[in-house]
């Protein structure tokens, strides 16, 4: 359970507890002042489910309680004719026989004389019951507050199914030649015929974070296909889903298969949903005992072509710049904003992260160099975090590489070579 959820539950429990405490204090004081059995009524009011005890108490409590002598403020009840402390008269008396009169009487029960209107009002006025008003406001407002918190918590939970998806498209069977588990699985799948096969490996959990790799082998392709991946929620109880969608084209494919690797990280292991041309497809799943990774050489070439495709000649093309940054590993530092210095040369790119750059390493510097190489008119890159700035110019990058950094933008081969040198 996350810290946020623990706090939320603690706050809600605290709010739930406030109500019985308030009711208990009120009922104890009130019943004591009315001469009732205070502990018993407090227990009934507090333990009675959903305020039933309090409703019963309000109805059956004696009406004359919480009265005080108007002269000496000594506690009295509506049964007293005189104040036991100062002797002041607490009731009107019959003008015929002097008998104490109740305010509701119309005639004196002793002598039968009619009671005039001016003697039909109580001598001792009952004080307003303000404590009850506050409790009634609290019993309405606190549940509304709890409801708001819980609904907010549920909405936040639904929108915070945080996940990260990394995928590699267009893999060849040869890329897995040095992995017996995968190559064996591919051979077995081939024997079973056309269809969709999934090899899954779940990494050991690191804290609350789960990581799963899927290798999806679609056998029996007759045309080119485009594949996209995304994560979604199947609802509160079903958890997250990883959606892999194939859209086939008219044009023929040179290969009769498609291999696709997806690495998914989230707080829960997702349910894999594969769709082919808008229809959910069934697949045969195998669990692997070993991590799914293809050769490093392949990784370099795939990453290089992915980055090369996103190159842009102009720094002013902000969306292309963001697309390129997203393809590097820099977004690992979290959300960022960019600032483009394009008023006068040298043109510069500034990337602002809210997070710290404490873990900024050689790999991240390499991504900054790649940005310099793939944005044609870019002269320097500044990466600004909460605790400092990392910067590199075109000259520094070229000196470090031993050749012109802009060669990255001329062919993917140079970039692939550079990436391979990093692994």
């Amino acid at each position, binding site marked *: *359970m*996350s810290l946020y*959820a623990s706090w*939320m*539950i603690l706050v*809600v429990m605290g709010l*739930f507890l406030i*109500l019985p405490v308030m009711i208990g204090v009120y009922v104890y004081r009130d019943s004591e002042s009315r001469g009732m059995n205070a502990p018993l009524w407090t227990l009934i009011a507090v333990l*009675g*489910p*959903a*305020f*039933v005890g*309090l*409703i*019963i108490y*309000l*109805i*059956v409590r004696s*009406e004359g309680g919480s009265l005080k002598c108007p002269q000496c403020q000594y506690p009295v009840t509506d049964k007293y004719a005189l104040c036991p402390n100062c002797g002041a008269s607490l009731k009107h008396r019959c003008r015929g026989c002097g008998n104490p009169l109740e*305010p*509701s009487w119309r005639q004196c029960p002793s002598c039968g004389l009619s009671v005039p*209107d001016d003697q*039909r*009002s*109580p001598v001792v006025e009952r004080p307003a019951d303000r404590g*009850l008003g506050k409790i*009634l406001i609290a*019993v*309405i407002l606190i*549940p*509304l507050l*709890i*409801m708001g918190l*819980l*609904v907010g*918590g*549920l909405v936040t*939970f639904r929108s915070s199914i945080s996940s990260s998806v990394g995928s590699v498209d267009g893999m060849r069977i040869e890329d897995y030649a040095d992995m017996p588990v995968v190559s064996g699985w591919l051979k077995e799948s081939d024997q079973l015929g056309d269809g969709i096969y999934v090899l899954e490996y779940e990494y050991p959990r690191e804290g609350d974070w789960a990581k799963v790799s899927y290798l999806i082998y679609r056998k029996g392709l007759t045309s080119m296909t485009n594949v996209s991946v995304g994560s979604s929620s199947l609802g*509160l*109880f079903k958890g997250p889903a990883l959606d892999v969608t194939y859209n086939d084209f008219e044009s023929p494919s040179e290969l009769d298969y498609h291999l696709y690797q997806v690495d998914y990280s989230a707080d829960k292991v997702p349910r894999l949903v594969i769709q082919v041309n808008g229809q959910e497809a069934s697949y045969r799943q195998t669990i692997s005992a070993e991590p799914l990774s293809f050769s490093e050489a392949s990784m370099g070439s795939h990453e290089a072509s992915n980055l090369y495709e996103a190159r842009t000649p102009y720094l002013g093309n902000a969306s292309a710049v963001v697309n390129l940054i997203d393809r590097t590993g820099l977004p690992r530092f979290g959300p960022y904003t960019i600032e483009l210095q394009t008023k006068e040369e040298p043109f510069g790119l500034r990337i602002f992260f809210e997070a710290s750059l404490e873990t900024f390493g050689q790999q991240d510097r390499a991504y900054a160099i790649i940005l310099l190489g793939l944005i044609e008119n870019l002269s320097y890159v500044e990466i600004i975090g909460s605790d400092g700035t990392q910067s590199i110019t075109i000259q520094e990058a070229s000196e470090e590489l031993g050749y012109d950094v802009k060669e990255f933008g001329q062919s993917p081969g140079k970039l692939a070579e550079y990436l391979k040198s990093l692994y």
Partner: protein
Amino acid sequence: MKLNFEFDSFEPPVLREQDLREILEKRQLIKRALMLTLASALIHICLALLALYLSLHSLPAALVCLFFLGVSLLNSGIAAVLFTRKMMNVIPY
């Protein structure tokens, strides 16, 4: 049909402070009981929402909450039925 009303031939009901005070207190009691009933319904909704929220994090905790909700609803129902049968005369209207 006679439409004229002879006001002089009827004596209007006598209004006394004490009677009015009693009516006011009874109305206040009904109002308070209605507010508490509404609060009771809100608390039950809160418990249901809490069970839903807990189910996302801990199923046993959610089941305990649901059990408490069930017990609370059952007890409320029993108390309401008993109260209506035995003590409804306490509330005159």
